[in-house]
């Protein structure tokens, strides 16, 4: 099902023309309303009239998370305060939090984009849909909430926490859809199993999972344990929140709402735009946003873009799964290591729980990588009643890690549930090198 075929199935020429027109308009808008951008453009000898087509976008300056922090709280806001009807803030664990103000029109666009996502996942007005992203400053909860209301399904604002109550509601209300982080979905499955709620007692059929990177293996596990079909949804609060891109039934990349968010892929080191299809850092320009429009915002997410019509009939460009973060990237002994690579290996072995922790340290001037994994009780069989057998299992994991990462890692086995679960974005790396 397609929520807005006019936009989601536009011809490429029409889309480019629309994007060009909108880009010109947004550049003019920020030039006149955001001193930060006016100065940047003036420094580069650019005026809004230099930006006429979408291809002119490469002339524009980039925006980074640091720019958002430096202009805290409202420096990048383009709309007057009286037009702002909602303000979200990112968790500011380092430095200032990121503040994003939305106008009424922005909230409308957001809901529309979210409705496109949910419709693509098969959600209709007949569904009972629970939103288990955190409600509050984080964009996940309210963002998904508005979309569910726009589609017309019954929204259950479960939020995170109180997972047992949520599990009970899923069973008792016959909830059919859920939006949450993939790690929370697994936590929920675990909670249900502990409570004795079986797959047959629940009616979940659709899951909208996002806000953290996940893998196909994790998708299989969630689908198997909760008995639903899991779809990827992508977004970031600086650009909008969840709804920037979404999978369709073909699950071959996530369709980008590119009439509102124009994507580019750049080399994170040289900042050169890369040709379509090549992997690099994802960059977005908001084409219609009024509250806090951003030009060429560097997401730090690594992926590639896929063009060509999809089997679902949509023509908008797709992005592959995020393979890592350009700032998550660990450089260990000179080798680039992404936590997602470790995740794919851990998930490929059924003996381990789908959780891990990376501990990076420096011993005698040499970087060390430790991968902590949890044994899974179900697969801890009589075969493993000798250290030799357990060491063999460890070796299988470390061999796989070495072949994927190109560096060796020490594997540490932990008892089931020994690695702390997160209910939001998972923290999977402890880098002790910075603390010495």
């Amino acid at each position: 099902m397609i929520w807005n075929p006019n936009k989601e199935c536009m011809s490429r020429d029409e889309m480019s023309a629309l994007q060009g027109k909108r880009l010109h308009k947004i550049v003019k808008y920020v030039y006149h309303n955001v001193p930060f951008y006016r100065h940047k453009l003036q420094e580069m000898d650019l005026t809004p009239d230099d930006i006429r087509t979408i291809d002119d976008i490469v002339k524009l300056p980039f925006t980074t998370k640091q720019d958002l922090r430096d202009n805290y709280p409202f420096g990048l806001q383009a709309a007057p305060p009286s037009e702002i009807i909602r303000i979200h803030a990112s968790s500011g664990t380092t430095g200032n939090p990121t503040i994003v103000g939305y106008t009424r029109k922005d909230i409308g666009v957001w809901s529309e984009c979210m409705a496109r996502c949910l419709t693509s996942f098969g959600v209709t007005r007949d569904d009972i849909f629970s939103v288990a992203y955190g409600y509050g400053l984080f964009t996940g909860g309210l963002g998904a909430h508005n979309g569910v209301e726009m589609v017309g399904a019954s929204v259950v604002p479960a939020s995170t926490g109180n997972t047992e109550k949520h599990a009970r509601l899923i069973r008792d209300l016959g909830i059919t859809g859920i939006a949450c982080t993939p790690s929370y979905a697994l936590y929920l499955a675990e909670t249900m199993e502990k409570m004795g709620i079986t797959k047959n007692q629940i009616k979940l059929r659709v899951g909208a999972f996002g806000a953290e990177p996940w893998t196909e293996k994790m998708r299989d596990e969630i689908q198997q344990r909760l008995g639903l079909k899991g779809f990827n949804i992508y977004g970031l609060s600086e650009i909008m929140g969840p709804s920037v891109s979404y999978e369709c039934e073909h699950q071959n990349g996530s369709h980008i709402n590119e009439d509102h968010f124009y994507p580019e892929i750049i080399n994170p080191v040289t900042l050169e735009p890369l040709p379509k299809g090549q992997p690099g850092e994802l960059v977005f320009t908001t084409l219609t946003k009024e509250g806090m429009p951003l030009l060429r915002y560097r997401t730090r997410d690594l992926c590639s873009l896929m063009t060509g019509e999809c089997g679902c009939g949509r023509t908008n460009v797709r992005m592959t799964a995020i393979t890592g973060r350009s700032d998550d990237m660990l450089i260990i002994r000179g080798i680039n290591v992404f936590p997602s690579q470790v995740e794919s290996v851990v998930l490929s072995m059924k003996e381990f729980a789908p959780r891990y922790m990376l501990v990076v340290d420096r011993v005698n001037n040499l970087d060390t990588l430790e991968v902590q994994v949890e044994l899974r009780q179900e697969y801890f069989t009589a075969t493993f009643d000798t250290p030799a057998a357990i060491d063999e299992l460890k070796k299988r994991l470390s061999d796989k890690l070495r072949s994927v990462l190109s560096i060796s890692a020490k594997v540490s086995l932990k008892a089931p549930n020994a690695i702390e679960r997160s209910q939001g974005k998972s923290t999977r790396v402890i880098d002790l090198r910075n603390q010495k």
Partner: protein
Amino acid sequence: MTVKQLSIFLENRSGTMTKVLDILKETGVRIIASSIADTAEYGLFRVICTDPQKAYDELAEAGVAVALSDVFAIQLDNRPGQVADTIRRISDAEISITYMYSFLFHGKGLLVFRTDNTEEAREVIRRASLKSIAEKDLIDWE
């Protein structure tokens, strides 16, 4: 001929064993014998107890990495050379002992071991008429 043994994975940090022992205590099973295979990074706690299935269920339920395996339990007479004679029978059949420990049971030595070929070892023990202890003997030992 064989008895059930719990093999419990323990991380090498303080408190992991207490957690397991507390669960066993709650369950009400009694530990008859135990041994630990220690490595630099973890330990394998092997336990023979009065109700292994119940203990296994409770431990697994509590999220402890635990396995149930079949191990041989041979009763020995209290005189020199008994262990040597028993093990020779096994090794003569070219069966390897994976691990072994012993304890006193009803005042007599009991040798517990696992081999790399359970079926053949079973046959060897039967042919040699070695005196073995069955699961039932342990549970009924009150």
